[in-house]
């Protein structure tokens, strides 16, 4: 394992990519600590320690997790990648509904880049919306649930300062988007997911330390062991796949023989990855946003309803909605990304077949059947893992928060595995070349 790392740093190409990625991530973290103008984040930190853990319960924990603690410090990069994720989700959902987007998607490369461009516009629009609501909530003190007096962290509240903060946060989101694209383009791994990964990792040590201080030693050990077991389980489930054998017929093209090989189609148990969880959690964040805009004490019935059921993350209604959303999105996303009919068609074209099943429609039906059967436990697993911290929080009343929360573990393992795989493929490319020469 260590040898691979040494080798990775020996190859100049890969080394540059790794260093570039690390560099961008460092700047990104730095920006998550620099406070927006007019914000006294030292005061926030001080007060936060005093009131402790008031903020870690509920939905905020999740949003704050995605922003690596930057949100509650009102940093320059307070919004993190949340707007981009939300925008991608919205565009993704809209491609199913709006015919124009669907035709664009089918157009291939050019259409795809157009869709990406729409996503970027939407990201900035959402960033303006979210930063405005955050600034509004900060000004009323609602962001910290009234625990911290507003004037300590926001000395002057004239309109100019507020508007400047909104501008700065929006521009920050733009920079983050650019960073993500830079990493995808010139670094290792997928930029956006790596940025989320960094933010999740960044809060990790402090939440472990918090746990160490709060809980007794045996409980701390127990939680750590449980976390390790959980990580192992998640790795196991993420890697799990069913291999459907495919046999290719031999054929002659000119004087050369093609095919005749037997391969397989790998179908992962959790084909959708962690996207369903992120979809669901950002959808459930919307009510919170709405309440933030409408004001907490509004007499509106809708607001009251949301306030009752969707603000505390441990309410059964919230948890059930979360669970069903995840399961639904898992099926939805698999349906979007894997098209059995298309795969069957392609296989038929190149003379491939699944042993025992006729090519064409029966193959598509078979693939669909297998995929549905695989996704059922896969989606249930996703939902359960994501719910785990809420259940643990609700039953044990552990106020310090469970650092091995389902979503964060899923993100850590998923992105980690993916990035390592990509580094490895780079390495293989390199060594193979050297071997042949």
């Amino acid at each position, binding site marked *: 394992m260590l040898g691979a790392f040494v080798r990775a740093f020996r190859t100049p190409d890969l080394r540059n990519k790794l260093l570039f990625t690390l560099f961008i991530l460092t700047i990104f973290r730095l*920006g998550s600590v*620099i*406070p*927006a*103008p*007019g*914000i*006294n984040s030292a005061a926030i930190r001080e007060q936060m320690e005093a009131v402790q853990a008031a903020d870690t319960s509920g939905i905020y924990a999740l949003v704050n997790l995605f922003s690596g603690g930057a949100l509650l410090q009102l940093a*320059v990069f307070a919004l993190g990648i949340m707007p*981009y*994720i939300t925008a*991608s*989700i919205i*565009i*993704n959902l809209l491609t199913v509904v709006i015919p124009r987007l669907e035709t664009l998607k089918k157009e291939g490369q050019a259409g*795809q*880049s157009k*869709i*990406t*461009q729409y*996503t*970027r*516009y939407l990201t*900035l629009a959402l960033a303006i919306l979210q930063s405005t609501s955050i600034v509004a909530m900060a000004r009323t003190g609602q962001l910290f649930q009234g625990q911290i007096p507003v004037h300590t962290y926001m*000395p*002057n509240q004239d309109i*100019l*300062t507020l*508007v*400047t903060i909104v*501008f*700065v946060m*929006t*521009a920050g989101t*733009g*920079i983050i*988007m*650019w960073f*993500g*694209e830079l990493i*995808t*383009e*010139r670094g290792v791994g*997928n*930029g*956006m*997911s790596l940025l989320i990964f960094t933010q999740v990792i960044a809060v990790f040590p402090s939440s472990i330390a918090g746990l160490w201080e709060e809980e007794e030693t045996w409980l701390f050990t127990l939680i750590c062991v449980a976390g390790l077991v959980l990580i192992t389980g998640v790795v196991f489930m993420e890697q799990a796949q069913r291999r459907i054998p495919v046999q290719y017929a031999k054929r002659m093209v000119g004087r050369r023989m093609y095919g005749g090989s037997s391969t397989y189609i790998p179908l992962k148990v959790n084909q959708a*990855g*962690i*996207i369903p969880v992120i979809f669901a959690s950002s959808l459930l964040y919307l009510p919170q946003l709405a309440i933030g805009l409408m004001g907490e004490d509004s007499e509106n019935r809708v607001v009251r309803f949301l306030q009752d059921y969707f603000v505390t993350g441990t309410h059964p209604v919230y948890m059930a909605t979360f669970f069903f959303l995840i399961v639904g999105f898992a099926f939805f996303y698999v349906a979007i*990304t894997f098209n059995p009919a298309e795969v069957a068609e392609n296989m038929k074209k190149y003379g491939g077949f699944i042993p025992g099943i006729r090519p064409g429609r029966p193959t598509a039906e078979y693939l669909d059947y297998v995929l549905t059967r695989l996704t059922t436990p896969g989606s249930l697993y996703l939902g359960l893992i994501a719910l785990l911290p809420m259940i643990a929080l609700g039953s044990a009343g552990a106020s310090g928060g469970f650092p091995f929360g389902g979503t964060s573990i899923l993100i850590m393992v*998923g*992105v980690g*595995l*993916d990035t390592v795989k*990509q580094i490895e*493929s780079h390495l293989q490319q390199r060594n193979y070349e050297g071997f042949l020469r």
Partner: protein
Amino acid sequence: MIVGLSIFVMLCSVLLILLVLLHKGKGGGLSDLFGGGVTSSLGGSSVVERNLDRLTIVTALMWIVCVVGLGLLISRGA
């Protein structure tokens, strides 16, 4: 002083957003977020893109310096 710098920061922010939007988006969207296939990035960046990169970096540096400066000014003034 604070007012002037604030307005400058806002202008910088708008400029920065425009510059970022001018870049060709290579994020690829959610489809290759989290465990998609290996995306191959073909070709280097063009001259336009490289100049745009430089311009963005310069603007970003200016922006962050002004943001920090403004933050210091406000906290000292208050």
